[in-house]
């Protein structure tokens, strides 16, 4: 039993670091990350991408005038475009690299992980998408603060949003620097500056319009690149799944066990906590939630999820094939191993399977293309994060809390641009400082806070009449603090970063424990709140409920 638990914890850690990182963010930091020779096709193709997106940013900057343009592209993105952009947010460079590497190493387990990522989307559609669109305007705090105390609730939501954004951004930056060093042969610092500065340019000049289009272009590149590699690889096996599996089992160290669930999800507590964290963490990430406000109405919001989940589902199956064919094509080719030893380590580390596969089936040109896609992907994700962080500062803290709704649009946009510059510089400086640090816990922390601080208050404010300001504050801060402490006391920080001997909290996934704390506190303190203000807040739910259901009032809100 003790052994099982230990395995569970180790795997949980692995799961936390890999999965969460894979889902949206910077690449997991497996293997050595030595600098590679300068990759010319990759740099040329990436420069083309930058030129194209700069052109779009210029075009977008001329159309970005109001706060609504800046935060939500004026609400004028179509369902299809937004679907691609959401898929772009969700399928990062690390999804492509990390998940294909997981299938390469663990076989079927990688496929199970991908289903766990995907399963949250239908739930978001059924229970959240239309109410988000009907109630929200620029940030998700618009919804939580709808009938509660604007100042206090928005401050709370902005703090937890910024916590999520900062940790996530930092994890992205460090991952990006290392990946770019590896793929392009650029210096780590150069890579960090390039990512940070391009991100600032996109967001400051182009706002949500540019950010969305960067995301769309990158999603298309990723879909095309991945599909192309998969087709070329499958053509070597006569497009027969049976051939691929038969040969993969013959050469893989797991043998026939390759297609069995392995040990990754052996501990039920970790498995369920991870599932909860991914599902509801996704539903609490500020940059994902913000995407729902960019479409015209609930109809388009629903369509966005349909398209997004279609692309994600398709792409995960492509990645599964990349991993399986990689076992044979990459795993048996000494060219891709350090010192030519196929029992040893892959050149560039374990996550390079998809890149090596691209080189094996399509030469340097395809490798260059895929590397450019990876860089583009990182840029798109950090831009989305920076915009979400900037809007929490300018829209929630500045315009609503400090100026109490009396700020002019021009100054609000100015504040968000200054906020973007600050976030960009913080990201660059911390990215350089943290180059050699173990940052794996940061993505876990971001997800934990999203699932435990943002999600419970958001869903309660939409569904539960009885939520009051006091309950929301206790739930939100309680979730934030408990998620933070659970991660701090878990092995990934307490032992791996601070170097204590044993972890105080046995699991690495906070969601299963921190979410009930947040819900419980929100419930108890709402029930105990007998103030006059609480009575008015409960009464105000009726109107909010009708608006959430019908969307009446939402369209006028997005125009003004």
């Amino acid at each position, binding site marked *: 039993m003790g052994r099982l638990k230990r395995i569970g914890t180790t795997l949980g850690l692995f799961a936390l670091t890999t999965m969460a990182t894979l889902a949206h963010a910077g690449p997991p930091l497996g293997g050595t990350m030595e600098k590679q020779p300068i990759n010319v096709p990759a740099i040329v193709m990436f420069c083309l991408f930058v030129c194209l997106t700069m052109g779009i940013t210029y075009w977008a900057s001329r159309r970005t005038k109001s706060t609504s343009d800046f935060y939500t592209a004026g609400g004028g993105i179509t369902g299809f475009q937004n679907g691609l952009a959401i898929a772009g947010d969700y399928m990062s460079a690390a999804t492509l690299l990390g998940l294909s590497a997981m299938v390469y190493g663990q076989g079927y387990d990688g496929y199970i992980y991908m289903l766990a990522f995907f399963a949250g989307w239908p739930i978001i559609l059924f229970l959240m998408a239309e109410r988000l669109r009907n109630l929200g305007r620029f940030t998700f705090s618009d919804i939580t603060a709808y009938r509660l105390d604007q100042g206090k609730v928005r401050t709370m939501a902005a703090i937890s949003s910024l916590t999520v954004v900062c940790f996530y951004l930092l994890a992205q930056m460090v991952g990006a620097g290392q990946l770019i060093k590896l793929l392009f042969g650029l210096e780590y610092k150069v890579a960090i500056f390039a990512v940070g500065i391009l991100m600032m340019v996109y967001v400051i000049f182009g706002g949500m319009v540019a950010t969305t289009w960067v995301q769309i272009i990158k999603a298309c590149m990723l879909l095309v690149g991945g599909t192309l590699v998969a087709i070329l690889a499958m053509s070597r096996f006569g497009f027969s799944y049976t051939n691929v599996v038969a040969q993969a089992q013959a050469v893989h160290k797991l043998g026939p066990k390759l297609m069995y669930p392995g040990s990754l999800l052996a501990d039920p507590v970790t498995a369920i906590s991870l599932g909860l964290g991914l599902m509801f963490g996704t539903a609490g990430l500020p940059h994902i939630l913000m995407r729902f406000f960019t479409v015209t109405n609930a109809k388009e919001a629903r369509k966005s999820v349909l398209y997004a989940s279609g692309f994600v589902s398709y792409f995960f199956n492509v990645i599964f094939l990349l991993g399986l064919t990689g076992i044979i094509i990459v795993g048996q080719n000494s060219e891709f191993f350090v010192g030519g030893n196929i029992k040893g380590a892959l050149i560039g580390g374990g996550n390079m399977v998809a890149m090596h596969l691209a080189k094996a089936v399509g030469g340097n040109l395809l490798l260059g293309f895929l590397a450019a896609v990876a860089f583009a992907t990182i840029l798109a994700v950090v831009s989305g994060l920076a915009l979400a962080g900037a809007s929490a500062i300018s829209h929630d803290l500045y315009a609503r809390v400090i100026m109490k709704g009396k700020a002019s649009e021009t100054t609000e946009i100015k504040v968000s641009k200054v906020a973007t510059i600050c976030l960009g510089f913080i990201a660059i400086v911390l990215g350089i400082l943290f180059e050699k640090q173990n940052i794996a816990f940061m993505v876990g922390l971001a997800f934990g806070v999203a699932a435990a601080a943002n999600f419970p208050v958001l869903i309660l404010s939409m569904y539960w009449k009885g939520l009051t300001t006091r309950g929301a504050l206790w739930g939100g801060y309680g979730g934030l603090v408990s998620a933070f402490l659970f991660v701090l006391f878990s092995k990934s920080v307490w032992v791996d970063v601070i170097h204590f001997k044993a972890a105080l909290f046995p699991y690495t996934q906070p969601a299963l424990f921190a979410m009930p704390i947040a819900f419980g506190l929100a419930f108890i303190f709402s029930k105990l709140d007998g103030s006059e203000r609480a009575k008015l807040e409960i009464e105000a739910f009726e109107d909010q409920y009708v608006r959430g*259901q019908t969307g009446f009032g939402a369209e006028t809100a997005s125009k003004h």
Partner: protein
Amino acid sequence: MSSEMYEHMRSNPKFQELVSKRSRFAWTLAFIVLTMFYGFVLVVAFKPALLGQPIHQGSMVTIGVVVELFMFIFFWVLTGVYVYRANGEFDSLTQELIKDAWKENK
């Protein structure tokens, strides 16, 4: 003005119809997805060997792969079903509701 409009809508029987139909539909679909997904997670945790079995003797295709591929497709089809009904039936009901409320408001 808004508050009166909301009052009109709330008292319209169509509102109750919309809310109860849509909630039932959404929660049923969510229940199907959650049951299948967490059921699958429990099989992975407690009966992993089952998923590694071939679908028939000598096949390279295992039960686990088939079940998962099915879920990938089925969950997506469910989102399609929801979007179809919500963007059609539920949205026209919502439009009627808003129109009725405007009439009453005059």
